């Protein structure tokens, strides 16, 4: 394998599954997911960006590609490339952010994720969460702290900065 091949294969192995999930969730056409993902990686490879955050760059590229395709599909209604979708770019951005947030939650380590679920989504107290997860309250508090920090870091790394 040449250097180029190795680099592209490395990006694909490292980031392909995440990109596929994101694209799959943001578009509704399963047949085109792989095409979009490969196009994203090829574009990024061609652009050879100077970036220390390749993941965010890939996601931004995917975002542009999806928006472009969505616009094209809107102009030609018979070609339904993207579904349950969003009338304007703001909606599309929100839909993508939603996918990225869900993806980020999936990348939290499981005991941090459990704490986020209990405290934030189920609105349990620290004491109730402690019983639910079978860990002392002090542990729940520190997990909540690191869950918040890690989630922010994961989202930053994905280029979700708001």
């Amino acid at each position: 394998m040449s250097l180029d091949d190795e680099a592209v294969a490395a990006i694909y192995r490292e980031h392909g599954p995440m990109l596929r999930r994101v694209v799959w969730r943001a578009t509704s056409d399963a047949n085109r997911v792989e095409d979009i993902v490969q196009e994203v990686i090829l574009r990024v490879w061609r652009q050879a960006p100077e970036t220390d955050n390749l993941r965010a760059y890939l996601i931004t590229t995917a975002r542009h590609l999806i928006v472009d395709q969505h616009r094209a599909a809107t102009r030609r209604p018979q070609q339904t490339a993207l579904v349950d979708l969003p009338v304007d770019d703001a909606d599309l951005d929100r839909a993508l952010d939603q996918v990225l947030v869900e993806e980020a939650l999936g990348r939290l380590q499981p005991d941090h994720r459990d704490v986020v679920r209990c405290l934030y989504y189920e609105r349990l107290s620290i004491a109730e969460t402690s019983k639910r997860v079978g860990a002392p309250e002090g542990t729940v508090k520190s997990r909540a702290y690191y869950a918040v920090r890690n989630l922010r870091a994961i989202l930053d790394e994905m280029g979700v900065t708001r």
Partner: protein
Amino acid sequence: MTVGSDDLHVLLGGYLLGGLSDADHRAFTEHLRGCSACQAELGQVSGLPRLLDLAGPAGGPHLSPDAEAAEAVAVDAPDGVDDARVARLLSAVAQKRRTRRRWLAAVAAAAATVLFGAGLWLGPRLTAPPDLPTTHVVASPAPGSSVRVDVALVTRGWGTQLDLDCEDMPTAGQLTLYVIDRQGASTAAASWLGTPTGYSRLTGATALRPDEIRRLEIRDGAGQVLASATT
């Protein structure tokens, strides 16, 4: 109960996600008032609740105990990468091959770093929070009022974004956030209706820069001040 400031610091997580006991909530808000490190840290993560809300009431498929959702994740997340796909991608690369030595070196280095796991890049981030232009204030309830309002002031090019987190608010009627400038002039920066839970989270805006804001007041429909904060 005596707790050191390290213990208090850690309460930021529960403070943001919810679930602190009243005593811990009070202890942390007290601590927050005087701790610039926690204020800066809270500024960094104060956007998270709005992002978490995007994932829907249950936090999306990764958090859902629901079997169907779990299956959806499994279906759309094939493990590994099959070689046929890599081969197809590589043949596309072969057609477009160019020399990208500098970039390739960077990618190779990045790929190597990734192998060591996420802990490495989380490390420096945790110890060196960037200096974000966000300050955080806790509004004190007016006499006879029990509302709790936390305000994050986020510096924007156009002025100041005011992120409010309100608890134990009146459950009905209009509520208004006023910003009062150095000259004492007050302007409404947000208005909303009380919710049955007494809990609401919202964002207001003002053209004033944070350093031009002297006070914030939350008033009810009759103009009665429920809580105020001096910045």
